[in-house]
């Protein structure tokens, strides 16, 4: 008995010792196949690629500025019907916060204190500003100062900031970041945007600053002209080689090109106002942009035409004279008689953005271009904020945009003689210079939905006829902003309510701070 008890106790002690409670647990709970830190340059590359425009810009921004339109409802309802489609209006919000703000914030955190990464730090600040500008232009008040800090500072429900404060901050950040880029410091050659070229990053940052400053043309001309001057002094983009473009490939596809070649291949068409503007001006760009599957009566007809096996009486045409834009204001039932009255086989017979050329899955996406910059500068000259030759800038803007089309591939290149002929035929005249410049800006920012939408609101150009769709939900003539994600009402209730009480109702009519009537 006594022996048993001793045996019992010895065994117990031994077993307890072996179990050793939590030995090795710290090591066990470390993921052996994933790193806890990474070269911030790699994250910066991801942030750059993900800044490409989300596919939600097709049903909204591109339809609001009447460049592309779909007759379909459901998930595609948006600018085509002037309707609030909540699962779609959150496209920019989710893409830029979840991807671009997230990764640039992390890059800034990693590089802020690191002398050897000072250029990367400035690059991340500029890129963050690009995303923040798209966000505030789309929605108005958005979280800016507290955004992206869910992990780093545990801010799960960031507060919304008035757009005026955001713009002031953006201008300051862009001024500092461009000034602090330094080619004597470590160069980020792995950078997928410019290979770390400090001069190109400076020109891009200044061009973005010019864009931000011009955005204030209706609300704060002093601040606008001050920063236009600073941007010019800092040095703007000088050629198409300076363009900020995501050069997509088939491994990292263009979201807009992707959807135009996949689920929505047969559903989006070039809008009549856009096609008419290009064709009435004999614009050679129409031949690069458009395609028509002449005689098509269905999606499969279009698809087999692309595959080179069109049905009888169907053929592919990229000739400008053949192009017919889909009029605004119809749905998939009411468009049918309209197409018939225009002598088309069906609404599948309207012109599309050519999904095998500019609309292909690996098409580059242009965030800020030399052409846009030249046109903005031309406007700044007209407004008297900087010295310069407005006509020359206008001409150069058009030329740059037409030349840029060659970057999509040989089959979209505009012949030099066509460019010169167009420029000769369309000189800038002072009487309606602003309209001319901004109409060109509209064409130059085609497929950059957020920018085309913002500039249209800012300048009122091009002069478009309000979309006459009978089921429109808006009070005004055009959509002025997109609505917030519903999730914000669920999880960030207090802050979004504050924003709405300052800014106005969360609908498509409320105008953002810089968008005022004049």
């Amino acid at each position, binding site marked *: 008995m006594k022996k048993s008890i001793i045996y019992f106790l010895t065994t117990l002690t031994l077993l307890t010792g072996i179990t050793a409670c939590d030995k090795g647990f710290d090591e066990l709970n470390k993921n052996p196949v994933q790193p806890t830190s990474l070269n911030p340059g790699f994250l910066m590359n991801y942030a750059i690629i993900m800044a490409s425009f989300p596919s939600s810009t097709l049903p909204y921004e591109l339809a609001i500025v009447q460049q592309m339109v779909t007759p379909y409802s459901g998930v595609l309802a948006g600018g085509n019907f002037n309707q609030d489609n909540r699962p779609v209006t959150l496209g920019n919000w989710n893409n830029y916060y979840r991807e671009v703000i997230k990764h640039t914030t992390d890059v800034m955190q990693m590089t802020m204190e690191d002398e050897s990464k000072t250029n990367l730090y400035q690059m991340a600040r500029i890129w963050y500003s690009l995303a923040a500008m798209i966000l505030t232009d789309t929605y108005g008040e958005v979280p800016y100062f507290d955004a992206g800090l869910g992990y780093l500072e545990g801010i799960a429900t960031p507060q919304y900031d008035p757009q005026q404060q955001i713009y002031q901050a953006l201008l300051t950040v862009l001024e500092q970041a461009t000034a602090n880029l330094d080619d004597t410091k470590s160069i980020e050659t792995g950078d997928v945007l410019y290979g770390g070229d400090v001069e190109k990053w400076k020109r891009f940052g200044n061009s973005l600053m010019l864009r931000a400053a011009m955005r204030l043309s209706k609300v704060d001309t002093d601040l606008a002209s001050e920063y236009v001057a600073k941007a010019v002094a800092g040095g703007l983009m000088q050629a198409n080689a300076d363009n900020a473009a995501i050069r997509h490939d088939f491994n990292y596809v263009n979201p807009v090109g992707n959807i135009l070649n996949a689920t929505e291949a047969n559903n989006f068409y070039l809008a009549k106002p856009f096609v008419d503007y290009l064709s009435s001006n004999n614009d050679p760009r129409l031949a690069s942009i458009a395609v028509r599957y002449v005689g098509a009566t269905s999606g499969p007809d279009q698809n087999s035409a692309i595959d080179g096996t069109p049905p009888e009486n169907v053929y592919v045409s990229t000739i400008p004279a053949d192009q017919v834009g889909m009029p605004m204001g119809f749905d998939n039932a009411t468009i049918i008689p309209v197409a018939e009255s225009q002598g088309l086989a069906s609404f599948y017979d309207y012109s599309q953005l050519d999904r095998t050329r500019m609309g292909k899955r690996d098409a580059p996406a242009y965030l800020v271009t030399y052409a846009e910059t030249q046109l903005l500068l031309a406007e700044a000259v007209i407004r008297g904020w900087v010295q310069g030759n407005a006509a020359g800038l206008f001409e150069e803007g058009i030329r740059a945009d037409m030349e840029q089309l060659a970057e999509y591939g040989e089959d979209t290149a505009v012949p030099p003689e066509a460019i010169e002929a167009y420029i000769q035929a369309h000189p800038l005249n002072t009487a309606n210079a602003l309209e001319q410049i901004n109409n060109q800006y509209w064409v130059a920012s085609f497929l950059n939905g957020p920018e085309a939408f913002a500039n249209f609101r800012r300048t009122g150009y091009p002069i478009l006829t309000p979309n006459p769709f009978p*089921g429109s939900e808006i009070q005004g003539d055009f959509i002025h902003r997109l609505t917030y994600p519903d999730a914000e009402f669920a999880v960030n209730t207090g802050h979004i309510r504050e924003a709405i009480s300052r800014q106005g109702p969360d609908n498509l009519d409320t105008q953002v701070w810089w968008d005022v009537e004049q």
Partner: protein
Amino acid sequence: MTQILFDGIEVPYVPQPSHVGAFYRTGQTWTNTVTLSSGGEFGGFNLSLSNMANTSIVPNSDYNRKTINLGFTQNIANKLNVSGNVNYSNERIKNPPQIAEQDMSTPTTIYSLANSMPLELLKENMKDANGDEFVYSRFTNRTNPYWAAYERFDQVKRDRLFGNITARYNFTDWLYLQGRIGQDFYARDQDYNFPTGTASLGNAPEGFVNGQYVQDTRRFREVNTDFLLGADRSFGNFGATLTLGGNRMYRRMDRDNVVVDDFVVRDLYTVMNGRLKDPIYEISERQVNSLYGMAELSYKEFLFLNATARNDWFSTLSAANRSILYPSVTGSFVFTQAFENFPNWFSFGKLRAGYAEVGSDTDVQPYADNLYYRVNNNLFPNPDGQQQPVGVINTTTVPNANLRPMRVSEWEAGLELRFLDRIGFNITYYHKLTTDQILAAQISDASSYITQLINVGESVNRGVELLLTATPVQTSNFKWDLSLNGSYNNSEVLKLGANPADTIITVGTGQFDGELRQVVGQPLGQLYGFGYLRNDLGQQVFDANSGRPLRTPAQIPYGTAIPKWIGGITNTFNYKGFNFSFLVDFKLGNKLISGTNFNAWRHGLHKGTLVGREQGYVVGNGVIIQEEVRNDAGEVTEISYEPNTVQSPLQAYYETVRSLRIQEEFVSNAGFWKLRQVTFGYDFTGLLPENKFIRAVRLNAVANNVLLLKKWVPNIDPEQFGFSSDNLIGLEAPGLPTTRSIGFNLNVKF
């Protein structure tokens, strides 16, 4: 009237009454089991072989499982016994049904197909001239169900081996030491495709065809090692049992997964044939160490006291939080035993009460305490054409290094009574407090993350469980047994985050909208969604321009998704060799938001959307805003309304539920009463000649899910859920139709 489909096929425009019946088929399950067993003085063994073959109701989908179980026990020496069991199973699933998604999910398409579409045409015209899926709908995510069933393949093979070996040494007749080691291991191989030519796919680059192929290999291992030292003695009227033990649970999963896109050779679905390759290798390891002890005291077979203490250490939690000690105490008193003077009809009576605590880390994934990065498999060129690495933060959930284990503490009291050995009654009341539940709460996307792992405050569950059994009739040939069980549970969220202002968290959003939230002061699992806007008089408000419904300014609550009442009644009748029984069960007191009805509504397939069909427009029954009066601050102080006369085009009107995510129309009482099971059987043993090779024969017929006696949700079975994730309770998405099954069970003993 005729309609033209598939570019030129003219067919009558007539309703197709049963898409579900025409596409799905009758499933079958065959199970064969053979069991061999023998026993003797020093041990025994048991061997069982089984084969289960099932064909799904979805065409081209089936399932097979073969199992072998071997168990043995042997006395090796006087005081040493060794026992163990080994179980092997081999599973093969061909094309497990895809449900509750957009692409490739047959119920999603079947339930939302125009009811004039003849299914045989979909089958015959599945492919175009190039062998690609014919684009039959502008919404290409609604895959042709025949394409999904026959062009997509999905193969799952799983080999599983689990078992354990126990050695027990009896030092004396009251003291023993037992050691046990057990392992559960499986290897699972799966591969599936997204077929080349599927309408929703983008084009491949020049020289390739599109399509996707996924190869997934998993190895899972869980090893449990434990020991137990036990003593059991009596001292006069007192009995005492003392047990001490410890356990180590180690679990590891290895996963290799390769996704490839686009192929060189068409219809050859291999990784080598793919263009874009995205391999992933993942490891997940966790361990729980435990030490525990139990003491049980008894007095004269009628008073029992049981106390335990247990300490767990969880590898997934930080050093400061990973150790947790929790006790339990239960006592019971068999009063019919304690007192002599109970009448004879009072057969048995017991009172019991207990308190127990439990801790767990099951909702924490390994490595959830840290932020991890990932380098993408595919490089991206810089302007010089040099391929550059691309890296991402590998999570959308904010990690939490300070998580505490979840704890549950529960009080329970019960009374168990038996009368005349014919009537039994067992009632339990419980009060369960859950603290620090671990979940991923949704946060603002502007934080750059989607969810945040947190310990969630406190919630309480209170309820009663009742079991009533009776044998109302019993004669030598006939017996009627009745069993009734029921439970009532009421839950309430007491506290959420650390901040008292945290009164709501969102835990899930359904595939077709609707949210599941936890709300302080409310029962667990509240369903939320936007409702129709109404004015103070309760009149529905429509948009003055478009005539479409408007929605509430924020999501509104619809009630809990968790049933309050659950129960069933079984009646069993035995007459000579025949037996017959049926079970009626119910779940009541909960709500659901139906995604199937939501889809039917926005596609104009719901009966409710017939309003306005003849005219081609709807004039919503309600009002529009006539004028809004605002104060200087721009706030609306007064609204006047006028009757709605706006004619809204049909399609846009009914699609508002999607564009504005209005859920009100699809909220239903999720309760039901079902005739769950009917069995009928006969025991042929009495008819067998004696002393023959066959010792017993019994045949049973079983029907399951026989009838839906009562339900409230239209068009679907309230149990017909696409998936049953904890954070999507009550958010229905199109699942397979529920089925009634009829089975025969033949049991022969040799």
